[in-house]
Every structure is written in C-alpha cells, then in structure tokens.
C-alpha cells in the first residue's frame, strides 16, 4: 500500500497562493498566519470558508441567471420600429437567418458556459462534502477548466458595448442596453468569484483524512 502522500498541510507548511513560498506553520498558530513575507498575500493553509462562500456565490449566480435570460439585454429602434432582444432571441435570430455558426458561438459563450460552470461547481462542492475519493485527478482538471472558461461569457456584454456605441443614429437606427445586460454581467462576475473561492485542494484532503483515520499516528 502506498504511504500517505506528503502535502504541505500534513508537513505543517503553508504554501503562499500567489508566490508559492513555503512557510513553516507553528502549532500555536491558528488558521490565519499573517502575511507572506515575500509578496504580502494573506497566508492560509486553505482558502477561508471555501465551501460556504462558494455555495453562497453559486446560489446568487443561479438566481441572477433567471432574470439575465428573461429580461431583454438590448432595445433596437429602426425607423420607428422598436424591438427588444433577450440572449436566447438573439441566438434564435442567427440560427433562423442562416448564420448558425455565430448563433452557436453566442449560445455557447452566454448560455452554456455559465450554466456548465455552475453545475460543475455544484458537483465539486457536493463531492467534496460527501468526502468522495472518486477520480480526484479528473475533478481537479474539471475545476481548472471552469476557472479558464468563465471569462468567455463576457463576450455578450462586449457585443452590447460595441452595438450601443456604433448604432446611435437617432430615429434611423438606435440600440440601447437594457437591464438584462446588468443581470447577465452580474452572473459572469459572480461565477468568476465562485470559481476563485473554491479550493481544489479540498478534493485531495479526503485522502489524508482517511489515511489518518486508518493509521493513527
């Protein structure tokens, strides 16, 4: 049987999250260890209240996801005709007008990625709370993926930014941003914070806990 893997935590060390400096943790110290002597970041063995914070942010994002998809994000006025668009109606417009690749890009970036991220983070939280040992390496990879793709959801906000800047010709053609865009931006920012507050090291802590229980020192 392989011996217990030696992690920074089991070796009474703390690794700085920013600059990776290893600092010895004195047994008298509690969770907060002050600042990193090198880069000044707050030192913690694990991110603070990682599970509770991530849950709170995920729930907030799920709530905001509903108005973000139901409330229009743009209002187009063209020669007196007013039309409001939600994210999905924009996607449907592109698909029906034969430009399905663009429709697909918007769908993936604005609808699929935020939802995928929320579902993956929920799954990671539940699996950590259930102390699951199932495919830890793949779950860590999944976490890295959610961290990397989140930013691409901002694309639709940028599209609206460019549209309102360009199409501003009074009665002839005018595009205005609507409240849905604010909710949507909130979803993107909150899910990014949610991914940052989750600590992937919790996925691996289970192994050390189990080993410690089986072979008490």
């Amino acid at each position, binding site marked *: 049987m392989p011996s217990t893997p030696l*992690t920074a*935590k089991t070796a009474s060390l703390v690794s700085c999250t920013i600059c990776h400096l290893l600092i*010895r943790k004195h047994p008298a110290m509690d969770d907060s260890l002050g600042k990193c*002597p090198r880069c000044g970041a707050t030192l913690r063995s694990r991110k603070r209240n990682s599970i509770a914070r991530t849950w709170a942010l995920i729930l907030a994002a799920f709530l905001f996801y509903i108005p973000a998809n139901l409330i229009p994000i743009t209002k187009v006025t063209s020669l007196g005709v007013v039309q409001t668009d939600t994210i999905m109606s924009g996607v449907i417009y592109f698909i029906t007008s034969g*430009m399905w690749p663009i429709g697909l890009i918007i769908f993936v970036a604005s609808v699929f990625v935020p939802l995928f991220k929320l579902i993956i983070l929920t799954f990671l939280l539940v699996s950590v709370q259930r102390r699951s040992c199932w495919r830890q390496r793949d779950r*860590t990879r999944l976490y890295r993926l959610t961290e990397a793709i989140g930013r691409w959801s901002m694309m639709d*906000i940028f*599209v609206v930014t460019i549209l309102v800047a*360009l199409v501003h010709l009074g009665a002839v053609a005018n595009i205005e941003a609507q409240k849905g865009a604010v909710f949507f931006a909130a979803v993107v920012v909150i899910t990014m914070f949610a991914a940052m507050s989750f600590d992937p090291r919790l996925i691996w802590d289970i192994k050390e806990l189990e080993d410690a229980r089986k072979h008490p020192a």
Partner: protein
Amino acid sequence: MKAGSFMACHDCDLLHRIPAISEGMSATCRRCGASLIKTKKNSLERTLALAITGLMLLIMANSFPFLGFKIQGQVRHTLLLTGIQQFYKSGMPWLALLVLFTTVIAPLAQLLSLIYVLLPLKFQHRPPGMFHVFRWMQIIQPWSMMEVFMVGILVSIVKLAKMAQILPDIAVFCFMALIFVLAACLASLDPHLVWDQWEKNGCHPPR
C-alpha cells in the same frame, strides 16, 4: 527555482522537491497534473520587449478611431471608450465600470506593473515594492479580457453586416495586434524569475 528546494502544488497541495530544470523545460504535479514550473528562454528580455510593445499598442488602441458605421450616407466614428460612455449615460454605471476595467484598466495595469518590475531587473536593480506590485499583477490577470472583447467585435460586425457597412479603423488593428502581443508576453513570463530575487537578496522564510 533552485533545484532541491521544495514547492507545494497549488491545486492539490502535494509537496515536490524541485529537480534541476534547464531553460525551456517545465514541471507538472505528479498527482493532479497542474503546471508547477515553466521556464522560458530569455524570459526577462522577451517579456519586457513584448510588454513595452503592448503598452504602445494599448495607448494607440484607445486614442485612435475604433470602428466606423455607415448607414444611408451617415457615418459615425466611435472610440473604444464610446460604448462605455453610452452605458454610463443610460444609467448603468456598474456595467460601464466593469467593461472599462476588463478592457482598459486591467490590461494597462498588467503591462505597467510588468514594465515596472522587469525593466529595473534587467539592469540589476530592484524597484521598491516589486513583490507587492507583481502580486497585484497576478491577481488582476483573470480580469483582463481583451481577447474576449476581440471575439465580441467579430460577432458585432457580423450582426450589423445586414444593417449597415462597418468600417474598421486604426485602433481595431492595434487592438488585434495587442491581443497577440499580450498573449505572447504572458506566455514568455516565468514568474519565478521575479520571486527568486527574494532569496538572492538573502531573505528566507522564518523557520
């Protein structure tokens, strides 16, 4: 990083003894596969050169006309900042701030802090507070979203193509070049180049 020193994986906390790594090689965590170290050839010079190029392009991208829009003989020229201004005017200051931060402030802060830290290092000087500046640069990194904005530009051009003629201007080309320069700049950066200066200074973590 010095061979023989220890490092913990940032994703799974496993301790690793750093092997001797020659330039251009990288090391990954043997348990979870996270990238631990990536050494680059001429990292300092390359990153510095690209950061200075990037700064010039960023200034140009923000000062020259960005996109033109032609409909029924009317032409409208816009700047990169026009849309942000429009958000602010229509009562969405937070949205304006978010777009301003992700497309202008974050990349600018990133490039300036890279130049602030790396330029003196090139000449064997240590600028005051360099480790704090470098930490903030790393914190800001996920919020710099120029490449996402670029895809946004392409989507909007396609979206408006039926309605009017879109005239790309100087700033768009600067912006496009900037995305590649910024990506190359960050790819050639080896953060341990900066962090290791601390040990060279005779500092060590308290035991």
